[in-house]
């Protein structure tokens, strides 16, 4: 895994560490936002149980997740979800080879609940503690859904918080080829949607408006970052705002739908172009797109179309794996286990952890 958890490696665990030809059972925990989740997996992608207790209804009346309320609920649900995950897997604590928890990014008060629990399990049973990056979890959710996916592969992960282009030789680790140097793709959608008064979240709002617009009505410049695989969306955002201001000054009426479609086309084009460039360079077998923005139909259409000439399959996660769960954390943890990427008991929560 790219990001290591630092610290002195402990060597005297209860059992000899296993290799990939032996069965490895991991208890994984997740509480970074408003789902309290626990799972048990065998050898990474085989999910023996995947318990998710959602608090969505609890936060609905506030119009968003309230951190203190979420943290209180995580503490309440912790033992019940762990019990259920172990029971459904038919496993007891003593059968576990390792314990994992998300340690970021997310809400610090929530993260600390399962992180502390995982540390306690590690200490009590003398088994390795594995700290998992939540974003990596969402990516590995794809591999749970498509275990036969061929490697090496390129993954484009795009959401309100990140835009990362990753290369996987196998599932034991990844290389970051490029990322956004300013706004994340989802953030750009949100900002423009708000600017146009189309509402939140911006992705679906823009996509809907774009459906009745002409995508070639206005040409917005794509960022040129030379040879790199990085992304940039702040120039595009400024271009859209300038366009609107200029048209208003001239007293011209603006077609919101044309504008949304043209903006969306520019974002999709930037994402797809970088992806195709990487696909050619790295000669991969498959391509995965994940994260909230991966739900955008126009993006899927353009990427699938351009991948055709390279004879490559495009994968995106099924909807149920887009929500937070612990199985995806356990999947990452398995590969970290094989790499002996263990965390010390001093591991702290990192609310703004990056890939």
């Amino acid at each position: 895994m790219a990001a290591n958890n630092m610290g002195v490696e402990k060597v005297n665990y209860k059992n000899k560490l296993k290799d990939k030809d032996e069965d490895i059972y991991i208890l994984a925990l997740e509480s970074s936002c408003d789902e309290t989740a626990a799972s048990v997996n065998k050898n990474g992608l085989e999910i023996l149980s995947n318990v998710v207790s959602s608090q969505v209804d609890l936060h609905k009346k506030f119009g968003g997740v309230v951190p203190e309320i979420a943290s209180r609920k995580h503490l309440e649900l912790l033992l019940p979800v762990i019990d259920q995950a172990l029971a459904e897997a038919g496993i007891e604590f003593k059968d576990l080879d390792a314990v994992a928890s998300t340690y970021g990014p997310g809400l610090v008060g929530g993260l600390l609940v399962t992180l502390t629990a995982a540390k306690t399990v590690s200490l009590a049973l003398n088994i390795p503690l594995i700290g998992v990056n939540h974003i990596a979890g969402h990516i590995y959710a794809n591999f749970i859904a498509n275990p036969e996916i061929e490697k090496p592969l390129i993954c484009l992960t795009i959401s309100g918080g990140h835009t990362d282009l990753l290369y996987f030789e196998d599932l034991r680790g990844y290389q970051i080829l490029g990322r956004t140097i300013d706004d994340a793709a989802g953030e750009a959608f949100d900002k423009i949607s708000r600017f146009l008064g189309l509402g939140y979240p911006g992705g679906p709002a823009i996509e809907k408006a774009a459906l009745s617009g002409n995508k070639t009505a206005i040409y917005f410049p794509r960022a040129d970052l030379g040879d790199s695989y990085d992304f940039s969306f702040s120039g595009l955002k400024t271009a859209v705002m300038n366009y609107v201001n200029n048209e208003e000054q001239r007293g011209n009426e603006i077609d919101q739908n044309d504008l949304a479609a043209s903006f969306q086309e520019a974002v999709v084009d930037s994402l797809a172009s970088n992806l195709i460039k990487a696909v050619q360079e790295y000669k991969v077998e498959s391509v995965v797109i994940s994260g909230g923005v991966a739900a955008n139909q126009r993006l899927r259409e353009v990427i699938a179309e351009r991948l055709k000439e390279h004879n490559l399959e495009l994968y995106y996660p099924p909807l149920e794996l887009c929500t937070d769960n612990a199985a995806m954390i356990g999947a990452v943890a398995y590969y970290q286990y094989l790499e002996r990427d263990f965390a010390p008991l001093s591991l702290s929560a990192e609310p703004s952890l990056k890939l």
Partner: protein
Amino acid sequence: MLILGIDTSTDILGLALMDSGQLKGEYNLSLKRQHSEKLLPLIEEIFELLGVEAGDLDGIAVAVGPGSFTGLRIGITTAKVLGRIFSIPVKGISTLEIMAAGAEGEYILPLLDARRKRVYYSFYQRNGNKDNNFLKEVKKAASAGISELPQILNEYQNQEISIIGEKTAEVRELLVENNFKTRIFEAEKNLPRAAVLARLGGDYICSGQADDIYQLKPAYLKIPQAEINWQQKYGSK
């Protein structure tokens, strides 16, 4: 009977191992906001130093506040998971009671700073219980403005009151002005000590008063701000 005491309710990280009434070791470290990073490594360390393994524990005592919600959840999570894995009893104890049980005197007023001239307090009588040796909570834990304390305690004006914890100098001055008899304590006695927590936990567990680990939670003396705002806007529920 080996009891581990865990206190992460205040700036002090407290850990103690008490073996059948005998203190094996104790940490009381003023670590401020480092409880998450330090608690488990320190438990591992105290076990190693004292030749104890987690599986040797017979019970857990954990401070349940008042205090920092995040800090409390760290200690309580640890206690719950240890209790669950080893099927051992867990007892949650008020941070105010830990302070009071470590102080001397018949009437004891433990205090924690609640900011903006307010304190969390409760009021205990040492020999107030007929059938056991636990302190009697004469006034339930609550928060109050410091200036309200003379009124709250007015029926005890003729008793000597031991004041312990935070804001003690300020509260003592006010009570003395109002003709109360008071005493305060030296620094080493003026904190929630982990050894007291572990001892109390052992006593409670021995008398059959352990908690249900599934129900155990911090003493939240305050509902979340978002809930308060919502209720002000829409009325309760």
